[in-house]
C-alpha cells in the first residue's frame, strides 16, 4: 500500500462542525499521527490536535479512528485502514474544543477525585522496601502503567450514559492506590471509589479492557474494588 493516496476525513470545529476531506500520500510505515501531522503541515495550518512523545508514552495523541478510540502515534495506517480510508475525530465522551482536541477536564477531575498518593513516610525514613512477590503489589504492578490517554474513557458506554460515572481510568487509579502498602489511608481511597458514580456503576462490559492501548485491564481493577467493597460491608463497614 506504499503507493497511492489515502482518503482522509478529519473533524473540523467543536461540538458543532463538519469533516474536512484531504488526499494524503500513502507511505511505508505511516502512523495515523503522521497523517494528521502531514495534513496540518501541508494543507491545513490551523488544524488543532495534541501529541508529544510520538512513542506511546505521554498519552496525549488519542483520537477516534474509523469509529474506534486509539492512540494515534502507535497505530499504523496499514493495520486500521487497509483500504486507505481514514475518518479521524476527537475522542468520545468529552467536549470537543477544536478539531481533534477535546476538553480533558472532566476526565482528569474524575481521576483526581479518587485521591492522590499520600504516604506515611517522612524524608527521614529509608525508602520503602516493596516486595515484587507480594500479591497486593502484583495488583498494583498490573495496573500502574496507565498513560492517561482516555481511550478507555472514550470506549466506555457507561460513561456515555452517565456523565457522573468516574470511568475506567480513575477507578483503575483508585485500585493502584488501594493496594499500595505505602498509602496512609487506604480506607479513604476505597471510600472515594464508592462515591456516587464510583465502581458499582460499572457493568463489566469490558470495552475499556478491549481498547486500552497499553494492555491494562481496568475491568479487573474495578472488579477488585467491587470485591473490596463487598468485604468491607461484610465486616460491617461501608459497601
Amino acid at each position, binding site marked *: 500500500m506504499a503507493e497511492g493516496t489515502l482518503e482522509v476525513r478529519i473533524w473540523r470545529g467543536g461540538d458543532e462542525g463538519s469533516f474536512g476531506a484531504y488526499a494524503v500520500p500513502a507511505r511505508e510505515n505511516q502512523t495515523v499521527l503522521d497523517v494528521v501531522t502531514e495534513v496540518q503541515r501541508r494543507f491545513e495550518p490551523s488544524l488543532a490536535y495534541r501529541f508529544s512523545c510520538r512513542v506511546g508514552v505521554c498519552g496525549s495523541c488519542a483520537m477516534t479512528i474509523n469509529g474506534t*478510540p486509539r492512540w494515534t502515534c502507535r497505530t499504523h495506517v496499514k493495520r486500521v485502514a487497509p483500504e486507505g480510508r481514514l475518518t479521524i475525530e476527537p475522542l468520545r465522551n468529552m467536549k470537543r474544543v477544536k478539531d481533534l482536541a477535546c476538553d480533558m477536564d472532566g476526565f482528569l477531575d474524575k481521576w483526581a477525585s479518587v485521591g492522590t498518593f499520600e504516604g506515611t513516610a517522612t524524608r527521614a525514613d529509608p525508602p520503602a522496601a516493596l516486595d515484587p512477590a507480594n500479591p497486593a503489589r502484583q495488583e498494583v504492578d498490573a495496573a500502574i502503567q496507565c498513560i492517561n490517554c482516555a481511550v478507555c474513557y472514550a470506549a466506555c*458506554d457507561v460513561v456515555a450514559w452517565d456523565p457522573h460515572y468516574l470511568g475506567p481510568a480513575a477507578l483503575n487509579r483508585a485500585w493502584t492506590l488501594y493496594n499500595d502498602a505505602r498509602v496512609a489511608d487506604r480506607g479513604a481511597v476505597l471510600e472515594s471509589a464508592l462515591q456516587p458514580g464510583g465502581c458499582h456503576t460499572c457493568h*463489566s*462490559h469490558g*470495552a475499556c*479492557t478491549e481498547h486500552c492501548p497499553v494492555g491494562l*485491564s481496568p*475491568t479487573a481493577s474495578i*472488579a477488585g474494588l467491587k470485591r473490596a467493597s463487598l468485604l468491607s460491608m461484610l465486616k460491617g463497614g461501608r459497601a
Partner: protein
Amino acid sequence: MRRGPGWWAAMGHRLSGLALAAFLPLHFLMLGQALGGAEALESSLKIAALPLVKLAEFGLVVALAVHLAFGLRVLAIEFLPWPAKDGLRLRLVYLGLAATALVGIAFAVSVA
C-alpha cells in the same frame, strides 16, 4: 464503539433481563389461576395449549437461559481471578449461546 462479543453479550443480558421482568409476572399469574380447583386447572391447561402461549413460554425459557448464562459470565469476570489472557471471558459468551440453544431445543422438543 466497535461492537464486539462482549458488547453483544451485555445487550443480550439486558434485553433478556427486561423480557423476564415483563413476562415472568404474566407467567406466575397463569400458574396462580390454575390453582383454583379442577375447572380452573382445566381452563388454564387450555390456555397453555394455545400456540401463541407456547411461543411466549418458549421465549421466556430462552430469555432465562440467556440471562442466566450471561449473568454467570458477569459474575465470573467480577469474582474469579483474572488470567492474563481472556479475563473478559469472551469464550463464555459462545459457551452461553450454545447452552441457550440446547435449552431452547430441549424445550421446543418436549413441548411440541
